[in-house]
């Protein structure tokens, strides 16, 4: 799937890059793909964000964090929540996927592999601890709505898998 074209004003990029996802702090909100636009008019910064899941409680925090960071950098910030187009796990950048894996969360697979894995048809999800794909689904819903709970049958560690959402 082609990456949607997202306009992020160059001047604002480093500031936004520093803001972490509140639930997965190793992941920048830019790498999570929730920032859909960041534009600048003089000192007025306007940022559009989209929720990962409708009820994601992190969205309010992300909005507040953006306002705080931009205000501290001397901008007048306005954050709007937009619904369309709906967020997709395809928008997590390669850097973001790597960060997830290093953090111990298996990054999302493509839609068809994801479906087979979640239906328990095939062992495809790679354990972020030991790299084995000898893993099984424990629960379709993990510690947050965006994750499923898996267990590795080699190293016996439970881990989160970031579910595919496209």
């Amino acid at each position, binding site marked *: 799937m082609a990456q949607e074209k997202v306009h992020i004003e160059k001047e604002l990029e480093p500031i936004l890059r520093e803001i972490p996802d509140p639930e997965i702090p190793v992941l920048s909100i830019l790498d999570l793909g929730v920032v859909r636009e960041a534009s600048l008019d003089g000192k007025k910064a306007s940022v559009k964000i989209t929720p990962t*899941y409708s009820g994601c409680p992190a969205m309010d925090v992300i909005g507040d964090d953006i306002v705080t960071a931009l205000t501290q950098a001397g901008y007048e910030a306005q954050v709007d929540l937009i619904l*369309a187009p709906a967020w997709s796990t395809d928008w997590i950048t390669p850097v973001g996927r790597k960060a997830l894996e290093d953090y111990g969360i298996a990054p999302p697979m493509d839609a068809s592999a994801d479906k087979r894995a979640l239906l328990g048809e095939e062992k495809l999800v790679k354990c972020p601890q030991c790299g084995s794909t000898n893993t099984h689904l424990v629960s379709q819903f993990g510690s947050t709505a965006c994750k499923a709970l898996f267990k590795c049958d080699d190293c016996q560690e439970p881990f989160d898998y970031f579910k595919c959402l496209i």
Partner: protein
Amino acid sequence: MSSKQEDSRFRENKIKYIYGIADNSLILGQRLGELTGHGPTLETDIALTNISLDLFGQVRSYFQYAAQVSEAEVTEDDLAFLRTEREYLNVLLVEQPNTDFAYSIGRQFLFDHFHFLLMTEMQNSKDETFVAIAKKCIKEVSYHKRFSSDWVKRLGDGTAESKEKMQTAIDDLWRFTDELFQTTEADEAMIEAGVGVDVKALKESYYKKVTAILEEATLEVPELKYFQKGGKKGIHTEHMGFILSEMQYMQRTYPGMKW
């Protein structure tokens, strides 16, 4: 009617139409929220509360839209917490209690399959906001549907006891399914305007899908001629008052409190 009156009538119908959809998610979300910390296992507990959270998230999108459509000065919180029982337009199915785990799963299963069809069709609405919400919701509802269907199969095709409980729940909840496909005056106005989904047209595929899963779960498909309805017109079962008194307690005790 003058165009101003027509416009105002249209808004009124649209708001009622939004309630008809959003209130289902709100009341079901509230019911699922009751299970927080009480799920039969940690995983199911977390799953049910995650579903609840998805539903509340959807409700917020709907109510923010309703507040925007409304000419009155109202907020999403007013709409969620300050209406009276008769003003809630959810179907009776979603207000049914968590009698046991099989009931919670049965209610979810019977609702999810309807919800999925509704969100699929809503993506064709002429109303941009509805399309955006539906495109977002459908992704979440797909997971809900998979979860509840898996559990219906697991319990139905499980032990003698789990099968009996699942069957009892389905038998008992089945009478609330027909209401999902009934339309109100506001619904009809929205359908005519190309904004709302004609739920009557979803009925056949719904029963086909639900029946197939019940059969796979080795459960009997209830045969019923009498169905119960009323929620869509604001006439609720005796459970509704209790739900609202709990749900509205904070807002009525501390007016103006925010989510």
